[in-house]
């Protein structure tokens, strides 16, 4: 029987009168890349802290790697890795010393520790830098080191809290390549991010908003949700010379439900009966020309914007 890596039921955390996490149900399959998304302050961090056994839930329950987070927090901690958005290893110590320290905390000794250190250093490609102070590494290398430290005890599940915040695009891509390798090897990844392209890479997504999970599913399931692509609408991309100005004009039109700029194009959510011609005319009326009409799928950004909008209207 394959037990899920994470399973929560009605997981709740209250701080005095404020409910930071409200009845969250999650199941994260083993070996998946699970994207946990939501605005800042929505309860993401509180939820992760409970799942890591650092913070006790005030309601509901959660099992991580088969251990109850409230009753067996030490077992949970033993079997997870954690990588935070801000570099949280010792800056004055070298990567080698950091890995030695964290390995020893997880009970690794002697040859076992040595071989694990070699393995994680090889995995993240840190060989050249193992002996310089960690604080002097660039952002991308710091995150690789943090990942190595999170992997030192071979945890079956790793939490990655905005692992790519503030690092350059090339380093970001290579970190994700590493994460794919890990997932391919059977490690479960629980990732939070604000980058939509990263969310697209997840096999499952849950979106938390105002302490509650409001939608969950695969990226393509989310894009097909009724509140994202309402009956009688379609999404259209157009090209123009001066997109920001055209966008301003289009937003005022009655048949345009939503409009935004994306990759030098304008993406529109319009009534289904509105033809490309109607849009073209509207743009021309503003003294510009539109071209390159094509129907498009909603992006994940569209999904989250649409869902939060429909919630705020309620």
């Amino acid at each position, binding site marked *: 029987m394959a037990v899920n890596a994470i399973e929560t039921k009605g997981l709740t955390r209250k701080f005095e009168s404020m409910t930071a996490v409200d009845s969250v149900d999650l199941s994260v399959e083993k070996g998946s890349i699970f994207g946990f998304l939501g605005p800042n302050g929505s309860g993401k961090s509180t939820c992760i802290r409970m799942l*890591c056994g*650092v913070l006790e839930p005030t309601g509901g329950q959660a099992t991580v790697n088969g251990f109850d987070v409230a009753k067996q927090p030490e077992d949970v901690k033993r079997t*997870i890795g954690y990588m935070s958005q801000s570099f*949280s290893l010792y800056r004055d110590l070298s990567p080698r010393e950091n890995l030695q320290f964290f390995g020893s905390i*997880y009970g690794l000794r002697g040859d076992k520790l040595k071989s694990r250190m070699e393995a994680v250093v090889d995995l993240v490609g840190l060989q050249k830098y193992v002996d310089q102070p960690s604080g002097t590494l660039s952002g991308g290398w710091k995150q690789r080191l943090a990942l190595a430290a999170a992997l030192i005890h071979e945890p079956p599940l790793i939490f990655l809290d905005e692992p790519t915040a503030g690092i350059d695009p090339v380093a970001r891509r290579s970190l994700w390549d590493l994460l794919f390798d890990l997932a391919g090897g059977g490690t479960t990844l629980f990732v939070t991010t604000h980058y939509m392209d990263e969310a697209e890479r997840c096999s499952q997504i849950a979106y938390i908003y105002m302490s509650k999970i409001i939608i969950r599913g695969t990226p393509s399931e989310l894009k097909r949700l009724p509140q994202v692509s309402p009956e009688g609408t379609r999404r259209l991309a157009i090209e123009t010379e001066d997109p920001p100005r055209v966008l301003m004009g289009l937003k005022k039109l009655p048949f345009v439900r939503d409009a935004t700029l994306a990759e030098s194009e304008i993406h529109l959510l319009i009534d289904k009966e509105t033809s490309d011609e109607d849009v073209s005319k509207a743009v021309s009326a503003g003294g510009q020309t539109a071209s390159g009409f094509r129907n498009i799928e909603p992006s994940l950004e569209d999904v989250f914007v649409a869902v939060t909008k429909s919630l705020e209207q309620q």
Partner: protein
Amino acid sequence: MNGFWSIVLIEFMHLRRDKTTLIIALVLPMMQMILFGYAINFDVKHIQTVVVDLDNTPESKQYLDRLHATHYIDYVAYAKTPEKAAGMLQDGAARVGVTIPPGFARTIEAGGNPQVGVMIDGSDAQVSVRAQLAFLSPPASLPKGAPDARINVLFNPSSKTATFMIPGLIAVILQVVTVALTAFSIVREKEQGTLEQLMVTPVGRLALMLGKLAPYAILAMGELLAVFFVSDVVFGVSARGSLLVLFFMSLPFVLASLALGLLISTIAQTQGQALQFTQLSLMPSLLLSGYVSPRETMPGWLYLISTVMPATHYIEITRGIMVRGAGFSDLLPQFFALIAIAVVLILLSTFRFRKSLA
């Protein structure tokens, strides 16, 4: 002067939101004034005295009552022999010993001036000077034949300031350094974010606390050796008792001070606050521990506060061993008090640490 008023305004806005600094700046000086106004009092009264009455006559009783009536002398014990009384002075159970010789009443009867033996503990200069005055000018002499007090200052007879100050200074200096060693430990990890990583590992809370403490305990014991060395070589104040015993008995004080630092570290939100708290913790240790003025002069509530401070007990240990030559068994109460304080502080910081994470 471009921007002067903007800066002034923004500083006031910072101040308004920084409650800790506000409290430290406004409320604390008042509290300190009150506390230390009571604490620093050189008008020593009620000096603990042991009596050896070998005459045991109405006259000897009357003499003792008159002495007591001066308020300077309080009888805390009666001993059979002057040797036993001297022993009590050495363990610090009493500061003064009065011996009334046999034939005290007869000498008075015969119109003579009887001799009274007085031993005074010179390890605290304030107490010693006051006690000598109490005997030299007997405020109410007996109807006839004023007794002649033969005063013998037992320890530090020359009343050398260094002999009396250095043992206390050792305690104060040791505390300053040790509290600061650990005061930053946890809060620094909090500020740098490394605590976040540590908390998701299976490291135990008590293990974390004791692990932070142990290396600094070794360092502090090394410091202690250096301080003893300076005390001996530069000031010529060496231990009359065993240096080994003193070293051993210093360990719980070092642990208690380090634990105090640890507690500060779990309470402070920033390293800046930790520094302020460290300085705060130092003031009472200087003024209430008996280092500056004798604890006998303090009102009861202040005396109680001073009892829970590690420095109070440690100063009694350093003075006991260095000045009076006291031994291990003489100072067991202080030793165990320090152990108790250390244990409580370590448990308290472990508990505080757990809470601060939520």
